[in-house]
């Protein structure tokens, strides 16, 4: 009895303190405060309307690989590249960098001055670090989702950026053209672009278009291996070198390597490029399809034509070394024509 009385008294004083019996009213007020503060933050974010560029004369304009019209008001001095290969291309065009992604060091093993900052990984660049460098031009790839997402914010904060898509040599050449236009260094376009093109054309001119070895191109990684075809950079080189990719006859190889199909076609050469940890990838290949006893009977394997290709020339974009890639393969395929 007594405890019930006490409870009643407590409740009454609760009423006084809380000023209202309705808990809902309190949460309602809190909610309104929360919404209002969100709105305040939202509006602050909106305040940054970029001023429309008054001048009609730009330093340079071009169209990027997503079809955006890029207008640079001045020559960019503080450039950040979110792709390692584009960082190299920019340097080859005579430009300077203030920020790069870590694949520059980890994959390309480029040596950059200490002042160049690492701003994250190619997959997850750190937006805050990028903005903190006060860049005036950013190089992005349209194939990486985080880049596309970041571009929205870059647009809002009025930082110029451009998307580049480089898969084959002509893409690199086009990008180098634009970049050297921006840096104003057209001799570098000749040296790192046109001369490489000449190098490639020289290689291709020596090839007999009717001598077509069959090849299989495999991309191996630690959890599997797949054949590759035309859209791959190395396969394009092989195509240009007048080989026939057996994957173009059997598209299923692009999904899964089948020892029966490979035996049926018995290619003259088998080329392998590894992704990720090379050691693990090659081991996986050995434990996978290469374990099959029929593997050792393949012409390519028997005649020492199962070749692991260097990553720098056939997996990462070789950029100015593209000509070397052509020469490397040409020497293997047609040793009598190329010493």
């Amino acid at each position, binding site marked *: 009895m007594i405890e*019930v009385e006490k*409870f009643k008294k407590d409740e009454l004083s609760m009423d006084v303190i809380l000023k209202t019996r309705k808990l*809902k009213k309190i949460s309602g007020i809190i909610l309104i405060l929360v919404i209002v503060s969100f709105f305040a933050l939202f509006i602050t974010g909106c305040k940054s309307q970029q001023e429309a560029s008054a001048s009609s004369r730009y330093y340079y304009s071009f169209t990027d690989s997503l079809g955006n019209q890029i207008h640079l008001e001045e020559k960019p001095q503080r450039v950040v590249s979110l792709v390692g290969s584009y960082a190299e291309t920019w340097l080859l065009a005579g430009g300077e960098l203030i920020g790069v992604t870590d694949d520059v060091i980890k994959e390309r093993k480029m040596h950059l001055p200490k002042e160049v900052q690492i701003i994250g990984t190619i997959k997850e660049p750190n937006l805050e670090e990028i903005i903190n460098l006060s860049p005036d031009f950013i190089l992005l790839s349209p194939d990486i989702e985080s880049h596309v997402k970041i571009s929205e914010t870059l647009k809002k904060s009025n930082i110029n950026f451009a998307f580049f898509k480089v898969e084959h040599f002509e893409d690199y050449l086009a990008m180098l053209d634009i970049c050297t236009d921006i840096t104003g260094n057209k001799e570098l376009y000749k040296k790192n672009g046109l001369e490489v093109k000449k190098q490639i054309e020289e290689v291709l001119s020596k090839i007999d278009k009717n001598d077509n070895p069959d090849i299989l191109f495999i991309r191996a990684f630690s959890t599997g291996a797949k054949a590759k075809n035309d859209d791959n950079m190395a396969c394009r080189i092989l195509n240009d070198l007048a080989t026939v990719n057996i994957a173009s006859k059997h598209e299923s190889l692009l999904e899964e390597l089948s020892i029966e199909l490979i035996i049926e076609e018995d290619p003259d050469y088998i080329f392998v490029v590894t992704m990720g940890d090379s050691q693990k990838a090659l081991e996986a290949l050995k434990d996978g399809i290469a374990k099959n006893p029929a593997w050792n009977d393949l012409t390519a394997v028997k005649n020492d034509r199962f070749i692991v290709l260097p990553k720098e020339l056939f997996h990462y974009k070789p950029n100015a070394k593209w000509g070397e890639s052509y020469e490397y393969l040409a020497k293997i395929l047609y040793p009598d024509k190329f010493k």
Partner: protein
Amino acid sequence: MIKLKNITAGYNNVEVIKNINIAFEEASITTIIGKNGCGKTTLLKTAANILKAFKGEVILKDRNISSFSNKELAKKLSFLPQIRKVPNITVYNLVMHGRYPYLDFLRVPQQKDKEIVQKTIEDMALGKYINKNIYELSGGQRQKVYIAMLLAQDTDIIFLDEPTTYLDINHQLEILEIIKRLKKMGKTIVMVLHDLNNALSYSDKICLMDKGEIVIYDSPEKVFESREIDRVFKVYSSQITFEDEMPKQYLFNLK
């Protein structure tokens, strides 16, 4: 007054009870008895609108039961299921849930609701547990809290599915006495009981079911005399009468 007319009902398209016609009188206690699976709970749930019948109508105060809105109906009849989870809630809050049909849009209990809850808890002698969590209580006390919730719901008709099963004997009898009090308040009680003696000694009317049909629906005395219990359950029933006003008791032996 609640009536079932030609009710056929069941689960998953399987008929359990067929062509049931029965009316439950006001201010009375009706107990439904029968063997397991005979359809007692199905009948109870259909009458309480917990289960929708395949065929037939349930008539409440001369209206089809489906013509009432959920809230309206909740103020007229209440149902206590047999198996209940033990929620993590205080006695006070559970009894307050009985006032749910009466709460407005904001779902905030008014002074009247609080008074009713308070009074109900005290009537059930649960005052000292008022802020305790339910599963600190014994089975019998818990049951009393649920009945308090039903009381707070303030309905004329109360349906109870095996309210005494699994309780200690003293709690069983306590609950049954409370049910008698509910009848005195003018409420109509319809319940399913397993214990035949309890059923016969506490009810005004007995509804004996077998294989989905009503075998006999009459006073305990008449049901006993008809020997239908003996036939359905295959037992030999006997009645004990006392000299003073104590209610009759019933014993059952194997045939």
